[in-house]
């Protein structure tokens, strides 16, 4: 997907129907966004059970707020904002105790790799998951929105209600911190 260009959100048709109270349309929205929503929730909470539960809570909030969605931004941007706020509130309630030590998603993502994936590829992805897990929550969130959810800088700023410059600075610092962590984890010969 090309960043920074205005594209028709493929969810628009379902969103329009869901706004009129169509449950099936909202079900389609959930089906098409749930993986990204879950990954975003996981990166904020670092706990698979909490992430699953909070993703559901966020969808319920989105459903209830849908009549107020005016279409000023893309639906996905609006949805990620609800997810982010819901998860951040939960995280503040629970503190860091919510985080689990093992990276469950790393193992799950490993299972998705093709059998012929090289050992180096698996190793690199494990290192990435592990390094991302060591970053502060705000860095994990912007990285997830940029690289996994494929949002533009503008959309991330809208999702997190942060100034554009702050988003760019956070992304830059997140990349730099991650690069150092990856280098540290690199096997030395």
């Amino acid at each position: 997907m090309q960043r920074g260009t205005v594209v028709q959100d493929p969810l628009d048709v379902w969103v329009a129907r869901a706004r009129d109270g169509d449950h099936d349309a909202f079900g389609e929205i959930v089906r098409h966004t749930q993986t990204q929503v879950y990954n975003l929730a996981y990166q904020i909470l670092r706990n698979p059970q909490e992430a699953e539960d909070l993703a559901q809570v966020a969808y319920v909030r989105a459903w209830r707020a849908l009549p107020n969605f005016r279409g000023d931004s893309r639906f996905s941007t609006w949805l990620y904002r609800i997810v982010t706020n819901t998860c951040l509130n939960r995280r503040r309630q629970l503190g860091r105790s919510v985080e689990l030590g093992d990276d469950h998603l790393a193992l799950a993502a490993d299972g998705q790799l093709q059998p012929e994936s090289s050992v180096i590829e698996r190793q690199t992805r494990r290192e990435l998951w592990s390094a991302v897990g060591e970053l502060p929550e705000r860095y994990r969130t912007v990285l997830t929105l940029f690289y996994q959810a494929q949002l533009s800088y503008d959309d991330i700023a809208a999702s997190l209600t942060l100034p554009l410059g702050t988003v760019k600075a956070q992304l830059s610092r997140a990349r730099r911190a991650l690069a150092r962590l990856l280098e540290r984890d690199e096997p030395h010969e």
Partner: protein
Amino acid sequence: MSNCRTYHDRIAELATATTDSISDLALQQHLAQCPSCRAELARLRRAETVLRAWPLAPLPHDLVAPVMARIARYPTEPGWQWLPWTVWVPALAITITIGTVLAANLVGLKLPESAPAALTLPPATMPIMASLRQPLGAAGRDLFWAIWFGLFFTLAGVGVSLGLMSRQSQLDDLTADLRERWEALRETARL
């Protein structure tokens, strides 16, 4: 090197660019002679490559059924609706209060000079009515305004608090947004 910081942002930009060629001549020369910036560029490029291949983890369970079960318990809120009574009743009371105070003080509302003839009060109440018709003294004026302001702020407080109670979810969003902005400001200040 002392001027490495000058190239800090440009190296970060270069690492995320899709092309390896360096059009910035000054940066090119700096990289040629600065091993530490070359290493930083290599580190950032590696991180960028890994991040671009960052896979989405699969969901442990499909969320559609549990989400639909949850929303079945909540009816859709229409886009436009009457305000709840917890908002409009205090708001109406405040409006009437302000209106009365303004009418009494700006327009010059006056009490009638005497009670209507048909209204004959029992003698026991006469001293009270007579005292009410007297011009207010300094203490009376203060009491008058204290009562009005007290009434005004009490009702305003009740209205605002009840309104916020019925808008708790939006308030949570607002609080989270404010915290995020505060974090961003602190981050900027640290740089």
